[in-house]
């Protein structure tokens, strides 16, 4: 188990910069997720940690030791590839012991370690089979077993769940987290799926276009996004132009055209320093569509017209018009949803909003 540190990392491919000036500290034993849209540089970062790519600039430290010049086969990392990369000509057992042969492990210990790894991924009896005789989910588990049997310092996972179908993906999510908790290995997980990131991570690193946008615990990144990009990447958000009237230890007051004055608590207004232009972020889940006149005390409201109704069973996604602005609301359905075209009201609690600085 080791920490991982990226110091001033830059990666260019020719004249194209895939990763801009990046600093990142991954604490020992943590489960850290690199989250961002396709092409934002997640895999590039992971491959640099793995030693499959050389950084153009900067340093990579694993367990405090600089590894820039350490070749991949000496880094002692467990990697699970997106396509699993199981050796098709070797049995499951041969796949798992592959990495043990290159370590100083008495050969009498190898069968026991192999079986322990198979037990850990809950496939104790498949050792004699070939990878193609397993289902996608089983191959996934074997790839994981092969990566952890070598007791790696760091476990690297590149979109390991994306090749699975939706149900299996959720099962594997829980399973993967259980295994990581059990062995406690420092884990860097790459995904473009926000729900995976929120469910599994100790820390989420949100990336966009080769840059880190925000690093934080799942609740922090979700509730208090540092930019419009983060607000929209982790679920849908409404971002409204606002004017900050005052900001300080008692919170901030934002003036918006749709909702008038909104008083945010201090923990939601850390990103505005004082009076000036700002933005109000309202998550779609926090914006309630209600019957006129039914809003509880303390909620901020505005009259609205329902324009689009996207019924999803337990929940419904509304697009409503407030003034000349379209807002998105994702609500639980109680009874039946509002009909398209009906007049309603949108409401939110001030503490569910958050502030961003600037235009």
């Amino acid at each position, binding site marked *: 188990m080791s920490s991982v540190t990226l110091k001033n990392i830059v990666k260019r491919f020719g004249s194209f910069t895939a990763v801009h000036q990046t600093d990142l500290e991954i604490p020992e034993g943590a489960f850290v997720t690199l989250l961002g849209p396709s092409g934002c540089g997640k895999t590039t970062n992971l491959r640099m940690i793995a030693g499959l790519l050389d950084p153009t600039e900067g340093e990579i430290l694993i367990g405090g030791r600089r590894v820039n010049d350490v070749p991949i*086969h000496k880094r002692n990392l467990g990697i699970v590839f997106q396509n699993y990369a199981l050796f098709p000509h070797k049995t499951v057992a041969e796949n798992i012991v*592959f990495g043990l042969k290159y370590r100083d492990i008495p050969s009498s210990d190898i069968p026991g370690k192999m079986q322990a790894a198979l037990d850990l991924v809950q496939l104790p009896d498949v050792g004699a089979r070939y990878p193609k005789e397993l289902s996608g989910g089983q191959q996934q588990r074997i790839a994981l077993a092969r*990566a952890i049997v070598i007791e790696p310092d760091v476990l690297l996972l590149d979109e390991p769940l994306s090749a699975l179908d939706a149900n299996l993906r959720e099962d594997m999510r829980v399973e993967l987290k259980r295994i990581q908790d059990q062995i406690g290995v420092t884990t860097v997980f790459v995904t473009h799926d926000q729900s995976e990131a929120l469910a599994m991570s100790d820390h989420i690193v949100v990336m966009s276009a080769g840059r880190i946008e925000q690093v934080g615990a799942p609740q922090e990144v979700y509730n208090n996004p540092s930019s419009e990009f983060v607000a929209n990447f982790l679920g849908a958000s409404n971002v409204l132009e606002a004017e900050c009237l005052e900001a300080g230890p008692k919170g901030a007051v934002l003036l918006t055209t749709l909702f008038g004055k909104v008083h945010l608590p201090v923990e939601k207004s850390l990103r505005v320093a004082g009076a000036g232009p700002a933005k109000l972020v309202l998550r779609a889940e926090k914006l309630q569509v209600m019957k006129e006149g039914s809003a509880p005390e303390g909620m901020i409201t505005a009259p609205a017209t329902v324009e689009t109704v996207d019924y999803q069973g337990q929940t419904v996604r509304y697009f409503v018009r407030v003034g000349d602005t379209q807002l998105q609301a994702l609500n639980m359905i109680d009874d039946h949803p509002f009909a398209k075209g009906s007049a309603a009201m949108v409401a939110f609690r001030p503490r569910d909003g958050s502030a961003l600085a600037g235009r």
Partner: protein
Amino acid sequence: MSVEAREKRQPWILLSPALTAITLLLFIPLLFIFVYSFWLRTATGADEIGFYLDNWREALTDAFYRDILLHTFKVAAITTVVCAMMGYPAAYFIARSKGNKPLLLLMLMLPFWISYIIRTMSWINILGVSGALNTFLLWIGVINEPIQMLYNEATVILGLVHFLLPFMVLNVFVSVDGIDETLEDAANSLGATRWQAFVQVTLPLSLPGLAAGGLLCFVLGAGTYITPLVLGGTSDAMFANLVFEAIITQLNWPLGSALSLMLLVVLGALVMIYNRYLGMAQLMKGLG
């Protein structure tokens, strides 16, 4: 017609042009050859029609033919091994190169645009007594008079390698190109050096391609008569030269037929063995 019936007929319809050509151009002539091999050539030069086993007896019992057959296999085997050793790294390089793979493959195919005979003859201009190499060596003064480098077993093998190398490279290329590169990354991440990863993963997975290329080189090499004719000496005749000699020079079609069928059966057996143990399915796996 039902859908099933149509689906059953379709392969035959699609195959029929090829099957017609193969029947007319391969099986019927082969049948002729088979029949010829039992005729007998008389001292007068006329062919005696009938069922004589004399040609077969001669072909199968005369040590002369056996020795040349063994020599042919030796030359073909050396050629195959040299092709494998030279071709594998090249194929691996092309398969793993980034970017200009099509250009590299085109360069590999380029020699096919020149006739095989011309390509073979070109070695005379290079290695002949008044060829480029001798001229150069004379000019720099390493030798005082030209040396004869041609017309021996080595030049026959050289010519065959020149002819057959692209077949080896193409087969291995297709095989290596189909192997997921992340398998090597995975092996490296588990502690294998690049060489160990190659030996443990890529090489075994590319064996079907290597075997297919090897089979092709061996069969084509063992069946050639042009290379030994152009680049070999009197003692470098290969089995196909005997057929050529019997049919073209001596006009002894019956003996030539028996000899050519003998070579066909031996090489055919080799293909069967390959098919049995490595199998076309294995080959397909190597390709995909």
